């Protein structure tokens, strides 16, 4: 017996030096190419680093942190932003403890963001000491949240409700209450920067998701009217460019409403983005629905489950899991598409950068610095979403056949 099933070890993998010799310097022309490439890399890297640290003039970025973060949000009302930052710290801390995984990464990233803001390389006049100290203090708030999350009575569902309630509270905080003294209304015209970009993106994603799912189900509905309306909506919206939709929602929509009803400009942009996103979301979800085998529905029917239960308990969980990658891809493009809202006078991150460049003659010719900074911010958020989706796929893929 033993002689047949003798164990043979796999060959040792080569060490790094052996690998380099075998793959990069195995004959004269490969050696030449390797050295040439190395030289090219070094020269490029030196040039880039020299530009970043010596040539570039980062003043338009460094001196305007507040503008990039919140636009023209009234400076005496900035405490509201502070409260929101703390709410996020607390929620992320709790979520980190309860869910771990992606949430831990998000909490870490958020902590790094707080640190970067606290240590922002600019004068204390442009970014006050108290604000920096508050950012530091929020690192503590994350830990408080983490400890709160250790409570046995706290469940995932509580945290989820906490997030939803907090998001609503944040909106009230930001916009204020009509007639209130301590929480005076702040018109959205003064909001800007990352705040608006995130509002449009998060709002667009959160609202368009359920609508997209409903549209996808509607398109597959056995009722011809429902199916026809869903299909018409999806195909019309998908046939229109987003910028056109934004123009329509911000210029044409008010024409159809009675003059006393005035929808806020930011809200109009959000409506446009949501409608656009929902149509694409619907097609993604429809693909997922088609991927669920018919046997699943038959088995559920044979058990006596109602059509509603079959959809919510059996079909959608499998369909949505199957379309996480395209859905996140769409979230990422929605996030980047928020820049188009600048076309309807919404001051999101990119247009803040542009207006900073135009505001001060000293900044003429510094476009490169500003746009690179804005691009870096967009990249960080997009990459975070991409990373979160990969983790989510792994976490939800347990026991997949």
């Amino acid at each position, binding site marked *: 017996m033993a002689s047949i099933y003798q164990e043979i070890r796999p060959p040792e993998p080569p060490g790094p030096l052996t690998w380099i010799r075998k793959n990069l310097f195995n004959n004269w022309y490969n050696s030449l190419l390797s050295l040439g490439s190395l030289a090219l890399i070094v020269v490029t890297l030196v040039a880039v680093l020299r530009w970043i640290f010596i040539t570039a003039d980062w003043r338009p970025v460094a001196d305007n942190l507040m503008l990039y973060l919140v636009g023209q949000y009234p400076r005496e009302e900035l405490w509201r932003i502070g409260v929101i930052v703390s709410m996020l710290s607390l929620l992320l801390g709790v979520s980190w403890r309860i869910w771990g995984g992606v949430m831990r990464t998000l909490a870490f990233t958020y902590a790094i963001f707080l640190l970067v803001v606290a240590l922002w390389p600019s004068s204390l006049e442009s970014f006050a000491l108290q604000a920096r100290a508050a950012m530091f203090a929020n690192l503590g708030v994350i830990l408080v949240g983490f400890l709160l999350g250790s409570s046995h009575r706290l469940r995932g569902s509580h945290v989820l409700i906490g997030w939803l309630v907090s998001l609503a509270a944040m909106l009230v905080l930001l916009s204020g209450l009509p007639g209130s003294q301590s929480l005076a209304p702040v018109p959205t015209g003064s909001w800007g920067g990352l705040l608006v970009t995130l509002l449009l993106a998060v709002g667009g994603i959160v609202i368009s998701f359920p609508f997209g799912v409903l549209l996808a189900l509607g398109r597959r509905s056995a009722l011809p009217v429902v199916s026809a309306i869903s299909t018409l909506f999806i195909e019309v919206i998908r046939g229109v460019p987003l910028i056109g939709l934004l123009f329509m929602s911000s210029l044409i929509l008010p024409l159809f409403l009675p003059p006393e009803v005035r929808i806020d400009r930011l809200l109009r942009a959000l409506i446009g983005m949501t409608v656009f996103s929902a149509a694409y979301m619907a097609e993604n979800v429809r693909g997922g629905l088609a991927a669920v085998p018919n*046997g699943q529905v038959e*088995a559920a029917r*044979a058990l*006596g489950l109602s059509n509603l239960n079959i959809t919510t308990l059996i079909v959608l969980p*499998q369909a949505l899991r199957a379309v996480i990658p395209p859905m996140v891809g769409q979230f990422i493009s929605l996030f980047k598409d928020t820049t188009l809202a600048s076309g309807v006078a919404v001051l999101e991150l990119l247009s803040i950068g542009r207006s900073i460049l135009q505001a001060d003659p000293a900044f003429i010719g510094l476009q490169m610095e500003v746009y690179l900074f804005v691009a870096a911010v967009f990249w960080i958020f997009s990459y975070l979403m991409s990373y979160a989706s990969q983790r989510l796929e792994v976490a939800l893929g347990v*026991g997949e056949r």
Partner: protein
Amino acid sequence: MSEHQATTQPIIIARDVHKWYGQFHALRGITMEVQKGEVIVIFGPSGSGKSTFIRTINRLEEHQKGQIIVDGIELTHDIRNIEAVRMETGMVFQQFNLFPHLTTLQNVTLAPIWVRKWKKQEAEKVGMQLLERVGIPEQANKYPGQLSGGQQQRVAIARALAMQPKIMLFDEPTSALDPEMIKEVLDVMVGLARTGMTMLVVTHEMGFAKAVANRMFFFDQGLIVEGGTPEHIFTDPQEDRTKLFLSQILTH
């Protein structure tokens, strides 16, 4: 083996059942009565309508002509009747059709919780008992993808039994299994038959038929060619088509 009482009302009555797929006439007038506690084996060549027929009994397929009455409820377009019949009828599929995103135990407790409105703890208790009955309580928290085919099919049986059905339908339950796993599934089915469950089984496992079937029906081209006790079918089949088919599946 269960006694069948001819004095009571049949639990399944099918009268002249017809089914078309487009122009194709899949069932051409099936008439069958099944008594409570009977084990019926249905066999025949592929395309003979045997799967289609048992799928009409819980309305996974709609019959276009004739009458089907299950436990006193006639199958019509009325969704309440259909749901009532489905609550009394468990089904096991060739491809298992377990829900891949739920654990074994969740697969079993899903319908009791959502259809019968049992409390979760109660459903889980019964679910664990059923998993013990089919011999895999230790797999309760695994996902279907982590189980062998035989184990998956046993979970599927437990899932169907969790609704406490009066009738169990088996649609080729061992056809997708590797040979060494067929026995573990058949053992569970034999055990179930001995508890007096009414069973309709589409299968070519003639050993199973000999052991527990009360009656057998040979289907061909949408018709019942011949029916009777296993003894009659195996030793004295009347029709040439039955003889030919049996000789083909029994000679190897």
